[in-house]
């Protein structure tokens, strides 16, 4: 069995997991209107860490996240040769070194925490975080490592903001996933970490069970979602089957929900095909924005907090159904003790990934 715990969230909503939970359970958003943030100085809604101004933001966030994980586990794990660190990110420290977007930060992590194994970076667009947690679980089940710490981090930069602007993908209001009036993403930044382990005793605040999932490509388009949800359908179906979990066993779906017209429609179709339409479902993009390579880790960590606190937070920004297939999108927080939750992600390059977490 693999276990997951020691979740850490650093975002515009707070520097600690507790601050983030307090904010999202009170339905507060990290999104604000940032003046002159866009190309040609357009004002844009962003979920941005406005107090983060030093030159080594990416490195600092990785160091802070790993330090926060280390406080929640047996400290000997960090320096063990049976431990690996996986970084999930798309653009890393691009602003300070476009030629080598991870090298300096990783060297700092290795040196500060005396890591034995060279960390690896997984860069698979918006599914990076979910893929990295699944990879961590796979490395442990294969007995290559005993523990794996996954750190997801991505920053808002002119580079990514101008890019998404050029695709006309950015919402002119805070994003509204699955809502009838949604019109695009809100970019976000943040850092999140979890530890995956073969031992539940190492987690000071208790562990949850990780049922490792799968990924599947849409084989359809490099920057547009499949009209049939084929890759997401296949990924979730195989994740359920591999773990002998039936769709009816799922108590909550933490969807990807970027709030673009086509992505959310694709997810609705895929969940309908799997038989998950009536399940409580939220997207957390209305709280954190779209944090790209960090999203899968942040949203998994937030889902773990929901399980620990017995509250499913509402899908912020949602008021009226806006997809062709019906879904049970949560419009008010639900007090519930979910036993089994499904986390999904979809992204550029046609990637789709999913995983399951179960309370013990």
């Amino acid at each position, binding site marked *: 069995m693999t276990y997951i715990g020691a979740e850490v969230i650093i975002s515009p909503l707070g520097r600690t997991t507790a601050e983030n939970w307090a904010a999202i359970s009170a339905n507060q958003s990290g999104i604000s209107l940032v003046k002159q943030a866009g190309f040609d100085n357009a004002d844009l809604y962003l979920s941005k860490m406005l107090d983060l101004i030093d030159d080594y933001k990416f490195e600092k966030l990785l160091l802070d996240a790993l330090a926060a994980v280390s406080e929640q586990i047996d400290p000997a794990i960090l320096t063990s040769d049976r431990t690996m660190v996986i970084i999930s990110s798309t653009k890393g420290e691009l602003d300070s070194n*476009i030629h080598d977007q991870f090298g300096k930060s990783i060297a700092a992590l290795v040196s500060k925490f005396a890591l034995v194994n060279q960390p690896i*970076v997984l860069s698979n667009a918006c599914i990076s975080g979910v893929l990295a947690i699944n990879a961590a679980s796979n490395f442990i089940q294969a007995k290559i490592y005993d523990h794996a710490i996954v750190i997801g981090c991505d920053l808002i930069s002119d580079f990514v903001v101008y*890019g998404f602007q050029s695709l006309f993908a950015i919402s002119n209001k805070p994003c509204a996933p699955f809502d009838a009036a949604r019109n695009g993403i809100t970019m976000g930044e943040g850092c999140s970490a979890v530890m995956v382990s073969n031992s539940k005793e190492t987690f000071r605040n208790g562990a949850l069970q990780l049922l490792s999932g799968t990924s599947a*490509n849409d084989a359809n388009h490099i920057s547009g979602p499949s009209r049939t949800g084929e890759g997401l359908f296949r990924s979730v179906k195989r994740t359920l089957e*591999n773990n002998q979990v039936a769709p009816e066993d799922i108590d909550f779906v933490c969807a990807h929900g970027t709030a673009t017209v086509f992505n959310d429609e694709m997810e609705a179709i895929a969940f309908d095909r799997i038989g998950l339409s009536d399940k409580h479902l939220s997207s957390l993009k209305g709280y954190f924005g779209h944090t790209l390579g960090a999203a899968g880790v942040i949203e998994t960590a937030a889902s773990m907090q929901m399980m620990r606190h017995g509250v499913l937070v509402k899908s912020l920004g949602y008021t009226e159904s806006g997809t062709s297939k019906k879904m049970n999108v949560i419009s008010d927080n639900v007090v519930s003790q979910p036993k089994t939750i499904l986390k999904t992600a979809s992204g550029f390059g046609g990637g789709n990934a999913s995983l399951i977490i179960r309370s013990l």
Partner: protein
Amino acid sequence: MSFITTYCHLSADQCLVNGEVICKRERSSADSWFKQIYKEQEFVYPKFYKMDALSQAGFLASELIKRANQGFASRYKDDEIAMLFANQSSSADSDLRFKHSYEHNGAPSPSLFVYTLPNIVLGEIAIINKWYGENMFAVLPKFAPGFFVDYGRILLSTGAKAILCGWLGILGDNIEVFVCLIENEPDSGLDFNSENLLELARFQSVITN
């Protein structure tokens, strides 16, 4: 057991399949090196011209492997062929071009931006072949055969029956590409292990632990 059944190298001036040179760069040509290979090998896939260098490299290597191992894909279901790629510099080659578009060419270019993620090459290969399998792109400081063997074996034990493994070192004129096909039950091939990968890849700079 699993085996390395077919492999392809692209360097700055040579293209090799299973160790045999099939194409040499003509330095005086007006075409880019990857376009020279595309034309000389008579590929027909017009989307090739829209791709960035990383995706062009992935296209060429995967298509050449398919030619050298005719019909291999038909031995597997559409979700049994996984892809496991890595490199040192992510999509930096395209990142520099996209940055140039908004700093010096007036506006951010959407057609460049969509290639500023290293995993896009996996999407391109999946689209051409209608492969719905597992995909992963890792950024590693150097070619690390141990990573491919460890995660490749994991993929083979969790449902994949073949894996396209690739190191796509592309940054400007520095081209260090090695793509190989791993299969569970071929007629012949080299054992899929770190020593053989290291020997076949023939890279100068590697991580061996």
